[in-house]
Structures are given as C-alpha cells and as structure tokens.
C-alpha cells in the first residue's frame, strides 16, 4: 500500500524499485491472517535469495497462495470447480509438494479460507478488479473454461473472493501497486490515437490456412480443464542441479514445500505458478470407480521420470509402485519435463481426473484404469489394457467424459459424446470413428500400391553394353542423328514425341533403349519439336569451348539461336500431363492426395520394373529429367501386401530395398535413412476416436497395415514380431455393427492415421494455444518498417490464429530495455511496463502479460494499432534479445506455447550478447563462424524445450546478425527459422510480399503443441543420427515443443543385425501432440520397405532424391564438425563410391573405360551432388554472407524432401510452351502446364519466357528475342526493350496468354507453404545472374559444368 502511494520512480532506478517492492513485502504478513503456514508457503522458497527475489516471490506468491488453499479445500470434498479455478490462477512459482509433509501443510490452511473459494469462480480471465488501472494478479486468463460458469458468475465470484477475504485483498494490490510504479513514463504515452496502419501489401495469392486445420468444437471445450499451471507437470527448472533435481524433500524449517531446486536464480515477480499442493491421499475421488484413475498417468509419469530423477521420494514410492519397466510408455511424455519430479506430475492428474459425478463440468473422465498396483512392467501396456479391463468403472455420467473428443480433422462432425463413450466399453465400446460425408475414415480412395513383381536380379546385368562410339567426347551431331531417332515407343523420358503417340500413354515404359534417348523423330517434327541435339548441345558439348560460350551473352546459334523463332509452339503439348508433378507439387491442394496417388501408381507401374535395373551411361545420357519431373521412387512390396504404403511425400526411405546385412549396405555405398514430413497438411486423414488404441505389448508399435494377422484374435507385430492379442473391440465394425474381420479397420487399411488419444497419453491437461510475440523495436527494426506490416498482418489474421476459447496471446518488445504490455481485460488501454534491467530480467507483473485472446481482444487490437507508432523514432540501437528470450521463457514456462521472435540486428546487450564475427570475404568458410559463438541460446533453448516452448525466428537483418548462434534457440526447441536478408518495406519490396505470405501462413497454419515423436523400426535397425529441429530425448524419441506442418526430419539408420526375419521391414513414426483445440492426438505413419539380399535390388530401389536430401543433411553436420571442404569431398565421394559400387556389380563386359554407368534409379545422383556443391550452403566459390550460408544449411536440415530437392535443383519451366493438353486440375479449374527442363543454358532460347522456381524465389527470364505480341500480351509492353526490368508481378491482362501464364504461376505459388520472391529478369539485365546462377549444369569461372564434373568423377574413379 505504501508502495502504491509512492511517487513514480524513474524506471531506470532499480534500487528504488527494489526498495519499494521490498517495502511492500514486509507489509504482507500483516495483512495475511491465514496462518503462518500458508503465509509462509509462497515466500519460503525465496527466502534464501536476494531481497528482490523475495519480493518477487511475494508479489506473485501471495495471490496464488489463496489458491493453494482453495485447492486444499476442494480436494477435500469441495466442488470440482474449485480445482479448475485453482489451476489457472496458479501461476506462480509455488512448487508442488513433493512429499506428504508439504501436503499436510497445505491442508492445514485455516478452514475459513475454503468457503471463499466459490465453486463457480473459474473464469479467471474475466475478473474485474476494483481499481481499474491496477490489474489483479489474476489467473492465467485463457486457461479455464468451464461449462457451468458464466462470466458474470465468475466476476461476482471473484469479487466475492476478494471482498470476502478483506485481509487478503490489499496484498495483491500491493504488489501490483508497486509495480505500477515501475512503469516507465513512456507508458503514459500508450494512449495514442490509432495510427494509420500501412496497408499490408496485397497477397499474391490467396492461401488459406491449411485445409485440415479445421473445425472448432466448442461444445467440447468444457472438457478441458483449465488447469495448466496447476496440473501441469511443469515445474521450476532445476537445471541447476546436475544430478537429479531429486525430489527428495528437504526439511525446511518453515514447513514450506521443499524446494526441489531453485529454477532460475531469479524467478521474477510472477515466476511460476504455485502448483497444486495436494498429496495423493487427498485426491481420492469421491466415487470408487474413480479411485485409481489417476494412476495410469501418474504411474506412467513416474516411470518415465524416476529413471531420470533418481529415487522417488519415499512417499511416492509407497503410493505408486515404482516402475522399473525398461520401456516407459512411449508417447506418454507430453510434459516432457526433464526436470519434473515425479510426484508432481501425478498430483495434478489426481485432480484432473477426480471429478465428482455431480460435476457437470465434464472433467475428462479417463477410461477407468484398473489396477492400482500396477506391476512395474505393466506400465507400458496401460493404454489399451486399462481401458479394456475395467470399463465398467467409467461413470455413466461422464457424458462429456473422455478427453478431447474429435474435433475431427477436416470437419468431421463429432458424433455425440455419449455414443462415444458408452458406459461399458467392453461390449459396445467399439472405437467410434468419426464419420463425415466426404471424408471417409477408411481411406478407401487411396489406391493400392502398384505391385511390382520383384525384378529378377539379373536384369541389371542383362543390358546391352553401351555403344563404344559414345566414347570420350560428346557425340557429334551427326552421330546423334543416326542414333537418336528412335521410334517413339522407345522414348523413355517423354521427350518430344510425335503427336501421334502423344496423349495415349502417360509414360510409355522404355522397352529397350539403354540410353533411352528420348528424342523426337527428327524429320517430321519441324514445327513442333526441338531440333535435334546437335544444334543445342551446349549442355554437354566438348567441354571447354561450348561451355564457356554459355556463359557469355549467348552466342547466336548455340544455345539460344537453336530454336527458330517460329518454333515457340509448345513441345509440351505433345506429352501427357506431368503426372508426377501433380503428385509432388500439389501437396497443398486439397484433394490432391487421392487423385495423385492414382495417377502416380499408374505411372509408376508403367515406368515399370524394366527401368529400375537399367544402366545409364551418364556421359551419354543427357536428358535425365523427364518433363514430368523426377519420378518418385516407391518400394515394391510383395504381393500379399495389397495395402497402401505411406505417401512418399510424408515418409520415404533412401533405399526402397533394404539390404539384409550391414555388409551388403556397405557394399552398396549408399546412405540408409528415412526422411519424414510428419505433420504435413493432408487433405484426407482417417481420424479415429477409439476407446482402445491397439499397440504391440512389447514394443508399443501401433497396429498398422503391415502387421500379420495370425488368426482372427491375434496379430503379429511387424517391428518386434511379437504375437499380440487383439481386443474384442477391434473386430467390431462400427459401420455395420457387426463383429468380423479386423482387416476392415481403418488402422489396418491406412498407413497414415490419426488417433484421438485418451487420457493415458496426457501428463497434464492439454495446454491451450499460447502465443507470445517478441518484437525488436530498436532503431534498426523501426527503420525497416516491418513493425507496421507485422501488426497489420496479425490484425488481419487475429481471428484465424489456431486455438480455442483458451487461446492466449502476449507481446513483448525489446531494444535495450524490455517492454511488456499489460493487456488485462478491463483496462481501457494497453499498459506498457518497461523493464530496463537486463541482467536479471523479471516480470513486471505476474499476470496479464499473457492474456486470453478472446477476453482481451479489444486491447490486443488496440495494442497492434498503436505499436508501430509507439516506437517510431526510437533511436536506441541495442538489442537485448537474450534477455527478452529469458523473459519469454519465464512468462510461458507454466504453459508452454510458441514464441515468435522478430529480430533485425545482432543482439548486442544483456545476456546472450554477440559480437560481429564476420570477416569480409570469409563467407563462412571458417568453421568457427558457421557454428555458434556461445551456448547461451542453446541452453536457453533446452530450457524452453523442457517447458514445451518453441521459439520461431524471423530474421530481418540487413547486417550480420550471427544467425549461427541465434538459430540455436530454434534448433533445439523445434522452432522454425525464416530469413529475409536486408528486409526493408520500401527498399526491398520483393521481400515484403514474401514476408507477408510467409507470416500469414505462419500465423494461421496448423500447430501442434507439447509434442513428441517416436520413430520405431523393425528389430535389427537402429537410428543413427537425427536431422532437423528438435531435441533428442532418447534413442528414438524427439521432443518437439511445437510441431508445424512445414517441418521435415531426417534420420540416418544403421543396420545392427541381419534382417532375415522378415521379407519386409517397417518404420513407424508416431507423433503425439496437442492440437490447437486442446485435443491430444497421435498421428502415426508407417512405411514398409522390402528387404533384399541382392545388391542389384538395392541399387534398383535407391531413391535418388531421398539420398540427395539425406546427404545434404549429413553434409551440414560434416561442415559444422570439421570443414565445408570436407563436406564437399564427402559429397563427391558419395557419388563416386555409389557409382563405383554399382559398376563393380555389373558384368565387366558392360563396363568400359569411357562410361560412367549409373542405375536408372541413381542417374541423377551426380547431378544432385553437383547441385549441392554449387549451392549456397556448400559452395566455396561464391561470396555469400555467413548468415546466408548458415540459413541455407539450416534449410537443408529442416526442409521436407521435395522442397529441399527443389532448393538444390530448381525447376525450370518454359512458360512460352504452356500446354493445355494435360492440364493440372485444381478444383474445377484446369491449369495449363509446362514440362520441366534441365538446368542447362542449352535449354534457354532467346525467344522464350522461362520461369526458374527455386522454391523461395521465382525468376521469369524474358529472352531477348521474344516476340512483340508476347510482350504485349504478357507484360503490356510493346516490345522487349520496353519491358521493365525487375518487375515483381505480372500485370493482370485480359488475354489468354497472360491468363494462362498467370494461372500457372499462381498455381506454382499456391502449391507451396511459403511465399516467394517473384522477379522478372530481362535477358540483358544486370540481375541476370540471379537466374543464371541456378543453371547448375553450366560451367562458371570457378565451378565445373555437369559434364566436367562427370569427367572429374571418372578420372577419380580411375584413380
């Protein structure tokens, strides 16, 4: 009270600040009548700390303290609502009790405190507070939504609470009052008129949120208990205590909770919430049926954590049998708190589950779990077992009982709750499938895999030897002439074929030609087809002269002049639709998946096995990529698996025939690994809400299409080969209501499936969506102008942020100081709180920095309107990113969530300050500069990961910002990184569009919280190394605080044992996450790959794209660990070794000294290696900046496979050859398409328009001899000379040419998750290099052409 009366302090004056706080603290005990014990509780663990820390504990400790008492009361028998109430409010650092003594202490609270906790007061976010300008340290606002309480009710209740305990009232105010002092005078500036927000730049293409991110089910929200803070197993960090953070109680004299270990040295005023202080004994729920409900989770939790934390506290050990199960329930660890002491985790669950039957609040009733005394080993079996064996315990009353009921992915209407949770699950407890029209659960439409008969091993060797005439140099045109004109049916890659054979078959399988030169029959194709090779041969010409020629301004006649002006007619019209293209690029298009699967399987089968064993002489074969793009390799499964394998865009293995032994793998010299894109947006995904999730009892594999059913009642796990019982429910078909063949189940029909997880998969109630935005507002940041753009975009998308009624949002700006924003509901305007203390950042007020989006929406909107002007003219250049991140960690610790950082410069002040390490001209060749300079960000990132916080970085820096160090914050917290070099709203408009698109997508895309991913594989294989952004928590478990749909992962595998047990092996990735709607879900992908003992099969099954992607990831590691030059050598050796190994195994009769033989499946490997050598990440020639290189490396690690391959080897389309013949179908629209060209200047004609699509950027090259009509039609300019260079959009013109080109370009843009830079480049432009640097097959001053590279490889191979 005194504090609040004091005059405003200079915010910089920390001393006085501390003093005033301290003064407040000393007062508190006087106001607190509730007994020494409880009074002491919140403070005691601060007591050893500094004055300021005491204050901190005090201020926020006080209020929660009341809540602790409420917990106690309610758990004794009070209404459940009180629990709820107490969860969200419990946001300070009161540690959970670790033993009985603490618990009893809690329960010794004076009884008078109980009644004041009115059952209904559980909408914390809605509190009104007496003095409007002073926020009460309220609950975490967004957390609780309980069905039976209205806001009004809550408000009155809240008042009740505050007024009903007058003695308590002052204290929270007290704290607040003091803090209101610290507010910088600047804060008074906040009430600023809404600034004119700059219009956001128009979207290039409309891109909605992901198709699946779908529907809200508000009715279900009541099921989610609010209790984040309280029930979560998130606790003070005890990173400090190295050995365990052992939960053994320390007997503190004050009878306070034994502090397991102090989290941060300085928890700050609102540190962490007081945890539910309830012991096991008190949590006995009222009904007997519930009695043990807490146990599965609790025990699982202990099982999980005991092993980490050493011995459990004695009390725990007695109440929950310690599990010694070697395999903890695998996906059980959403809380993933490494530091969590066991007991705490269990406590919340007791509360969470122990809802009395009277409560209509709908506390999630877990399927009653049976045995209290779980035998140690049984834990891992709990999920399915406990449900089964004791179904009758499930109270009938729990209509809203089960946890999250399907807000099924793409608009599945949830069936009624009651039907989902039948009282007796044994008989009618069939899995309830969410059926919705149009979204069949059973993924019927997914076509069966093409069944390739296992190709005879001998075919590889049976090929006709390559003609020796193709020897050293390049086939002169003359010889081409006689060799190339193959009959159309022989053309493999679909190069211009005569119209006659055009649309008939998509991809005629090559019947014989070993070098399937897909050539046009020359004589008759004058108008429509390219001239024969001789004329535009420059890609692979006698090396030196021709290649040099390409670099120059296109000598007439060689590359460009080859095509007569009139020949602009499309050659692509001769081919069928690029089937593969559809499959690979349409990923984002709803509905694409099933169709394309069909197409793909057709094409695949037509490609045929004949191909796979074919050899290609790379020195002769120049057209390696068909216009349809590179085919997607798929495993050829044996006949009896008439099942669908996982979509190759989601899950791929580098070898589609796994060698049986590691020696065979070594012989093949190919990397073995898997690439996975687990959270990819899917247009169709079977979602299962089932009371029982069938898993293998020993390895916990989810049942999948590749298991073997021994009989109707048993199935054999395909990973560990254990024979498991099949639960009765599993053979029940919910559609026909009959028992029967288990094979009808969607789990057995689809390799990608999503389960809605029951309570066993939760360690705490699912967290709400929590978003915190960290905005750089230093001089540099304001100068770029990003702030207004960001605010505008966020304003636009505010309603589309994924989340439910609990969605929480917060903002934190920083330059040299930290600017917090109090957005408490009821304030008239946002309140800015300035904390200039960086070394010891603390939260200026305990609550309301993160607020419920819906309740404080006006304030959020107002803040976003004010922000750009608020910091206008800020001349502070320092950037305290480290301190801001620490604060964010503190702020989000109790819940977890997503932190979005906008950073524009090198962080220079406070903790985590960095120095400029960039040496001009170095471009990151020095390894030290592409690795982190400090482990500050890494450590912080691990702390964040433990608290389920992910940090996403948007780097908008023009100058060096040490991305190598900063990226660590995202790398280990499973965040994502965006990089916009030299972002400036005015000076760099190209990036603005990209930023706009990216940010909109980022804000609205699907998100999964507190997730873990486990990769299982068949016995004999093991995971060697992981690639991507995550923290590896155990040998097969990745901790992913957030998962986003654009994140890809890679894993190198090693073969430990012979794989002769089975003819196939499987990989299963199970991603357990909390959806933004608060549901716990498990997405399971299973990939099945055949095993072989023939090396020829290994080569035939190699997936060159996956291999390239995996090698890129490995090369990044190599670069960081040793040197980029080592990584480059490794790449060259990789292709050298693989091709050498291939050559070894084919009969020597086919080998000759002047060939480089590659299997058809690896024909692009040298090309990809060359592309990698020339890429920004690994090139030693360029002068790229260190940050650019680091970002490129980072992209190599995280991009999903197809995006990565496109980044390495961009797509080149001849836009002047758009064809309607095989249009891309998108909805009802038909988009003309163009075939992909190889990246050789030989393919560039002066008369054409060429689009280079690198994934991140699109460059439209306008040939210098382009016709005037085209200029007029496309660019609205009379001729080439008047086309403006550097246009960033195509004018929207009403003519067919323009419309076709625009629809194709827009289609390409829409089919990717990120934004692109679009740039029109004239052939004579000074930006020409932007386009031509991607011509990877060309020679440059300091890099080899593709042909030279091949010769180089050949030379090396010879020794």
């Amino acid at each position, binding site marked *: 009270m005194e504090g609040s009366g004091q005059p405003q302090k200079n915010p910089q004056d920390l001393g006085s600040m501390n003093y005033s706080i301290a003064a407040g603290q000393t007062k508190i005990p006087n106001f607190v009548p509730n007994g020494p014990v409880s009074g002491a509780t919140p403070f005691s663990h601060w007591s050893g700390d500094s004055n300021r820390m005491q204050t901190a504990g005090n201020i926020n400790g006080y209020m929660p303290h009341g809540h602790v008492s409420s917990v106690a009361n309610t758990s004794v028998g009070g209404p459940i609502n009180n629990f709820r109430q107490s969860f969200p409010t419990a946001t300070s650092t009161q540690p959970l009790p670790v033993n009985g003594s603490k618990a009893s202490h809690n329960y010794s609270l004076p009884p008078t405190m109980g009644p004041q906790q009115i059952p209904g007061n559980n909408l914390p976010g809605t509190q009104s507070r007496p003095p409007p300008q002073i926020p009460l340290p309220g609950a975490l606002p967004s957390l609780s939504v309980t069905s039976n309480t209205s806001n009004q009710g809550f408000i009155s209740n809240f008042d009740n609470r505050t007024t009903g305990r007058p003695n308590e009232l002052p204290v929270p105010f007290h704290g607040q009052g003091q803090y209101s002092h610290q507010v910088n005078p600047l804060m008074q500036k906040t009430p600023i008129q809404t600034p004119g927000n700059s219009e956001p730049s128009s979207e290039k293409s409309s891109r909605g949120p992901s198709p699946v991110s779908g529907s809200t089910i508000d009715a279900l929200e009541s099921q989610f208990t609010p209790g984040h803070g309280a029930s979560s197993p998130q606790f003070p960090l005890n990173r400090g205590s190295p*050995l365990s953070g052992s939960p053994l109680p320390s007997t503190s004299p004050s009878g306070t909770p034994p502090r397991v270990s102090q989290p941060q040295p300085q928890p700050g005023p609102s540190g962490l919430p007081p945890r539910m202080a309830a012991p096991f004994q008190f949590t006995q729920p009222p009904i007997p049926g519930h009695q043990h409900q807490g146990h599965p989770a609790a025990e699982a939790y202990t099982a999980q954590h005991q*092993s*980490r934390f050493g011995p459990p506290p004695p009390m725990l050990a007695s109440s929950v049998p310690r599990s010694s199960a070697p395999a903890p329930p695998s996906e059980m660890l959403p809380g993933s708190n*490494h*530091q969590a002491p066991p007991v705490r985790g269990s406590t919340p669950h007791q509360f969470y589950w122990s809802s009395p039957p009277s409560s209509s609040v709908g506390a999630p009733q877990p399927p009653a779990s049976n045995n209290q005394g779980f035998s140690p080993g049984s834990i891992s079996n709990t999920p399915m077992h406990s449900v089964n064996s004791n179904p009758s315990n499930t109270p009938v009353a729990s209509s809203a009982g089960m946890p999250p009921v399907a807000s099924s992915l793409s608009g599945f209407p949830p069936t009624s709750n009651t039907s989902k949770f039948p009282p007796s699950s044994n008989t009618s407890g069939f899995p309830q499938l969410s059926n919705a029209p149009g979204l069949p659960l059973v993924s019927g439409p997914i076509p069966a895999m093409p069944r390739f008969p296992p190709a005879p091993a001998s075919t590889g060797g049976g090929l006709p030897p390559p003609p020796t005439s193709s020897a050293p140099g390049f086939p002169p045109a003359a010889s081409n002439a006689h060799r190339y004109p193959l009959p159309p049916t022989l053309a493999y890659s679909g190069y211009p074929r005569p119209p006659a054979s055009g649309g008939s078959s998509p991809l005629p399988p090559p019947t014989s030609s070993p070098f399937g030169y897909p050539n046009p029959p020359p004589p008759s194709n004058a108008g429509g087809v390219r001239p024969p090779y001789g004329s535009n041969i420059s890609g692979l010409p006698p090396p030196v002269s021709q290649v040099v020629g390409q670099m120059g301004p296109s000598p007439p006649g060689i590359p460009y002049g080859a095509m007569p002006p009139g020949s602009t007619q499309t050659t692509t019209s001769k081919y069928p639709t690029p089937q593969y293209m559809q499959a690979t690029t349409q990923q984002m298009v709803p509905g694409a998946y099933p169709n394309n699967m069909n197409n793909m399987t057709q094409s695949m089968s037509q490609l045929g096995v004949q191909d796979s064993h074919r050899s290609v002489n790379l020195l002769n074969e120049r057209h390696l990529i068909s216009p349809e793009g590179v085919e997607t390799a798929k495993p050829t499964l044996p006949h009896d698996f008439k099942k669908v394998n996982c979509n190759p865009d989601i899950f791929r293995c580098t070898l589609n025939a796994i060698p049986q032994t590691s020696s065979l793998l070594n012989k093949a010299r190919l990397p073995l690994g898997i690439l996975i894109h687990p959270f990819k947006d899917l247009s169709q995904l079977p979602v299962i809400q089932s009371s029982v999730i069938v898993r293998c009892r020993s390895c916990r594999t989810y049942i999948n299409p590749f298991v073997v059913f021994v009989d109707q009642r048993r199935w054999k796990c395909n990973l560990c080969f254990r024979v498991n019982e099949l639960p009765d429910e599993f053979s029940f078909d919910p559609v026909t209501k009959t028992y029967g063949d288990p094979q009808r189940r969607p789990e057995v029909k689809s390799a990608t499936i999503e389960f809605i997880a029951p309570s066993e998969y939760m360690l705490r109630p699912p967290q709400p969506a929590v978003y915190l935005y960290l905005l750089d507002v230093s001089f540099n940041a304001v100068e770029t102008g990003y702030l207004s753009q960001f605010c505008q975009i966020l304003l636009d998308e505010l309603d589309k942020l994924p989340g439910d009624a609990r969605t929480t949002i917060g903002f934190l700006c920083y330059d040299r100081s930290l600017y917090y924003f109090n957005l408490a509901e009821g304030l008239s305007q946002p309140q800015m709180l300035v904390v200039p203390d960086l070394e010891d950042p603390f939260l200026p007020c305990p609550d309301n920095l993160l607020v419920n989006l819906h309740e404080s929406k006006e304030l959020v909107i107002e803040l976003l309107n004010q922000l750009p002007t608020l910091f206008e003219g800020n001349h502070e250049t320092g950037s305290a990113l480290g301190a801001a991140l620490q604060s964010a960690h503190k702020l989000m610790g109790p819940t977890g969530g997503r932190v979005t950082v906008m950073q524009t410069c090198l962080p220079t002040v406070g903790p985590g300050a960095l120095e400029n390490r960039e040496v001009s001209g170095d471009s990151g060749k020095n390894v030290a500069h592409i690795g982190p300079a*400090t482990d500050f960000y890494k450590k912080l990132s691990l702390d964040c990961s433990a608290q389920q916080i992910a940090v996403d970085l948007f780097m908008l820096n023009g100058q060096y910002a040490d991305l190598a160090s900063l990226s660590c914050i995202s790398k280990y917290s499973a965040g994502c990184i965006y990089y916009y070099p030299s972002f400036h709203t005015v000076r760099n408009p190209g990036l603005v569009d990209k930023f706009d698109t990216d940010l909109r997508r980022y804000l609205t895309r699907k998100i999964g919280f507190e997730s873990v991913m486990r990769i299982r594989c068949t016995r004999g294989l093991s995971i060697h*190394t992981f690639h991507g952004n995550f923290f590896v*928590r*155990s040998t097969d478990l990745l901790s992913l605080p957030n998962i986003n749909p654009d994140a890809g992962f890679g894993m190198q595998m090693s073969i430990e044992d012979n794989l002769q047990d089975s003819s196939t092996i499987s990989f299963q990735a199970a991603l357990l996450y909390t959806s933004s709607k608060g549901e716990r879900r498990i997405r399971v992908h299973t990939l099945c790959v055949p095993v072989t003992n023939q090396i020829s099969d290994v080569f035939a099954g190699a997936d060159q794209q996956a291999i390239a992607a995996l090698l890129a990831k490995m090369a990044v590691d190599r670069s960081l660990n040793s040197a980029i030059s080592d990584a480059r050598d490794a790449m060259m050796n990789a292709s050298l070794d693989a091709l050498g190994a291939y050559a070894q195994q084919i009969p020597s009769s086919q080998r000759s000294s002047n060939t480089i033989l590659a299997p058809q499946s690896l024909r692009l490997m040298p090309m990809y290696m060359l592309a990698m050598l020339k890429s920004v990440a690994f090139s030693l020639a360029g002068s790229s900046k260190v940050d650019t290189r680091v970002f490129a490396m980072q992209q190599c690690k995280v991009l999903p496979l197809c995006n990565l391959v496109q980044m390495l080897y961009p797509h080149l389309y001849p836009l002047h050859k758009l064809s309607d013949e095989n249009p891309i179908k998108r909805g009802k629209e038909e988009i003309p398409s163009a075939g992909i060209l190889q990246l050789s200047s030989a393919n560039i004609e002066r008369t054409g328009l060429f689009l280079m699509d690198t994934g991140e950027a699109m460059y439209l090259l306008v040939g210098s001899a382009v016709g005037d009509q085209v200029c007029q039609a496309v660019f609205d300019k009379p001729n080439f000379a008047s086309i403006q260079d550097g246009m960033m959009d195509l004018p929207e013109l009403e003519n067919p040419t323009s419309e076709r080109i625009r629809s194709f370009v827009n289609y390409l843009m829409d089919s990717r998750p990120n934004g692109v830079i679009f740039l029109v480049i004239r052939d004579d432009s000074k930006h020409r290099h932007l386009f031509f640097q991607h011509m990877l097959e060309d020679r440059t001053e300091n890099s080899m052409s593709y042909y030279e590279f091949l010769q180089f490889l050949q030379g090396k191979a010879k020794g």
Partner: protein
Amino acid sequence: MAFTFAAFCYILALILTAVLIFFVIFHIIAFDELKTDYKNPIDQCNSLNPLVIPEYAIHVFFTVLFLFAGQIGTVIFNLPLIVYHVRRYLNRPVMSGMGLYDPTTIMNADELGRAQKEGWVKLGFYLISFFYYLYSMIYVLVSSTA
C-alpha cells in the same frame, strides 16, 4: 625397506587410480543408461560434465608426481592419455560450463559409441595402471631396501 617418495607416489597413484576406475565405471554406466533410454540426456550430461575436469586433473596430478619422483617410465606410460585428454578437451563443443558432453549431440550414435568405447578403453587402461602401480610400488619398496 624404505619409504621413498617414489613409493609414496605409487601408493597415492594406486588410491587415485581406484578413484578413477570408479569415475570411469560411472561414465560407462551413464552412457549405457543413455543408450537404453533410461535417462534424459540433459540430466546425464549435467551429471557427467562436472566429473570430466576432476578426472583429468587427478590423472595429471599423479603423473606430475611421478615426474618429480623420477619415475620416467611411468610418466611415459601415462603421457598418451594426457595428450588425448588435452586434445579431447580442446575440441569440445562450444560450452560455457566445464565438461565435454553436449546434450544436443550426445544422442548421436557416433558420439555415444565413441564415448562408450572411450569408457571401456579407459577402464582397461586404469586397471592395467592399477596393477602396474601396485607392482611398481612393491618393487620400489623392495628395491629400495636393497
């Protein structure tokens, strides 16, 4: 039988080697636990890292004592390990604290394998040293009598 400085060194080294053997056994167990999923890598690294420097220091300490005692043979016997330790420590990942093990890379199969192998090799080395010191101690004691 005279109690020379060399004998003292050997006795001390004997005791310290026993300590080192415990260290290295702990190390082996720790990595085994990591490999079998029992432990969280963060915790495990936090418990392993503080032991690295003490282990190295103890080893260097008695090697220096041997140097003073003139037991050149024993010094040469220990020298390779010292060199290895120094190199290992110089090439450690970027860390602010002491220690070698980084929780983010420790789960890499190569790293795990290397650490485990290192543990076993060191255990062998320390065991051999132990008996070597025992023998030498007796030898020194006996020979100094003569």
